[in-house]
């Protein structure tokens, strides 16, 4: 039998109401509150432990709460982690999201929760946690616990998981291809959608445009004449033997190349391995993508302090955002170490 652990707040953990919201995390062997119901509904696992933590404790001392709970779990065997249901309780929703995310990252087990659509925890954690659309209040406890258990069973049995809409959890921003059961070809779908759009009828796009994620603008370089400037590029400029074997599409690797003794990049010494465009121009003159020659000129003029010893390369085509973010973070470490002050990113 596989094992499950459930997280509850002070109220459902039967510690007390609002006055106990500062309750520090505990782990109890066995079934407390909704854990009994969850255990009853789960077919492929037994609930071995219940974790209880006050909502305010999690809210105000999040790091401490998470660390304590992760320590509880260190020596426990478990295959799946549940939290809630949190209904419309905002602080509880947040707590379920925080702990599920942390448990998933640390132990790599599936994490499942349930919240009402208006619970702010949904928007905060839908990308990290399977959050099922639950009821408004505890009146829906049995139903919501059943939903979580059914899905848990499905994961544990290795059954094929259906798209979010069909399973009933909030979409996690993960898109995969599926074959339509109706076998309706794209030609029918596109013409029907057009007719509906023309007639002012409701239609459903197959690609909802996601909202953009923004980063705060970094503070500017104060004194360019003392600044170290680095070049990063996604145009695949590498030494001709491509020593880091960076892939020409869907890259997972990047490289850094020493140019401290070079005035410019020479064709024949560097080339592009990017497969998404005609390489002729960049092979002949790699400076059209990594403008080392121009930066050297500005260095001589004193407009900039110095050109960073290395430039950094990867390939943009088909590279996943997750991979790009990871490579970005890795490159950041090198930039920090070299006290780089500003970065020019050339993309193709």
């Amino acid at each position, binding site marked *: 039998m596989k094992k499950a652990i459930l997280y509850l707040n002070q109220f459902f953990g039967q510690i007390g109401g609002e006055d106990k919201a500062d309750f520090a995390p505990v782990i109890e062997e066995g079934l407390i509150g909704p854990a009994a119901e969850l255990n009853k509904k789960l077919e492929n696992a037994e609930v071995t432990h219940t974790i209880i933590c006050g909502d305010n404790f999690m809210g105000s001392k999040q790091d401490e709460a998470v660390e304590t709970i992760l320590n509880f779990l260190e020596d426990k065997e478990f295959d799946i982690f549940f939290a809630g249901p949190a209904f419309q309780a905002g602080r509880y929703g947040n707590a379920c999201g925080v702990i599920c995310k942390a448990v998933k990252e640390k132990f790599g087990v599936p994490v499942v929760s349930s919240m009402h659509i208006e619970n702010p925890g949904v928007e905060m954690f839908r990308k990290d946690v399977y959050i099922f659309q639950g009821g408004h209040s505890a009146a829906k406890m049995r139903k919501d616990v059943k939903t979580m258990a059914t899905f848990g069973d499905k994961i544990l049995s290795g059954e094929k998981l259906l798209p979010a809409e069909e399973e009933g959890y909030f979409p996690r921003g993960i898109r995969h291809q599926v074959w339509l059961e109706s076998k309706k070809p794209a030609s029918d779908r596109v013409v029907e959608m057009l007719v509906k759009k023309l007639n002012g009828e409701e239609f459903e796009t197959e690609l909802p445009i996601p909202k*953009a*994620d*923004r*980063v*705060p*603008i*970094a*503070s*500017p*370089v*104060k004194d*360019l004449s003392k*600044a170290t*400037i680095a070049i*990063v590029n*996604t*145009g695949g400029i590498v030494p001709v033997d491509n020593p880091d074997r960076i892939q020409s599409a869907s890259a997972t690797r990047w490289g850094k190349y020493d140019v401290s003794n070079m005035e410019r990049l020479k064709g024949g010494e560097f080339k592009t391995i990017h497969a*998404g*465009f*005609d*390489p*002729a*121009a*960049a092979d*002949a*003159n790699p*400076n*059209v*993508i990594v*403008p080392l*020659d*121009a*930066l050297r*000129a*500005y260095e001589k003029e004193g*407009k*900039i302090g110095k050109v960073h010893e290395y430039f950094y390369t*990867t390939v943009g085509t088909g590279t996943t955002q997750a991979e*790009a*973010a990871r*490579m*970005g*973070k890795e*490159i*950041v470490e090198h*930039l*920090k170490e070299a006290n*780089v*002050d*500003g*970065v*020019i*990113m*050339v*993309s*193709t």
Partner: protein
Amino acid sequence: MVKEIERAGFPIVQMANLVPVAKTVGSNKIVPTISIPYPLGDPNTPEEQQWKLRYHRVGVALDALTMDVQEQTVFDVKF
């Protein structure tokens, strides 16, 4: 990638031909380039002209690094 570098606090300017793409991925400072295969120098033009273009646009990018902007900004180029 731009976002990760900026998130770490480095001022960064993206030189890109596809400005709409740069905007969509969330770059805050953008300097346009002339094409995808040769962002900074058209091989069909004389070396001298390619150099002038590259020198100019890299200069704009460097200046952009020093600018205190409040929103996504696409910087103008002359050549």
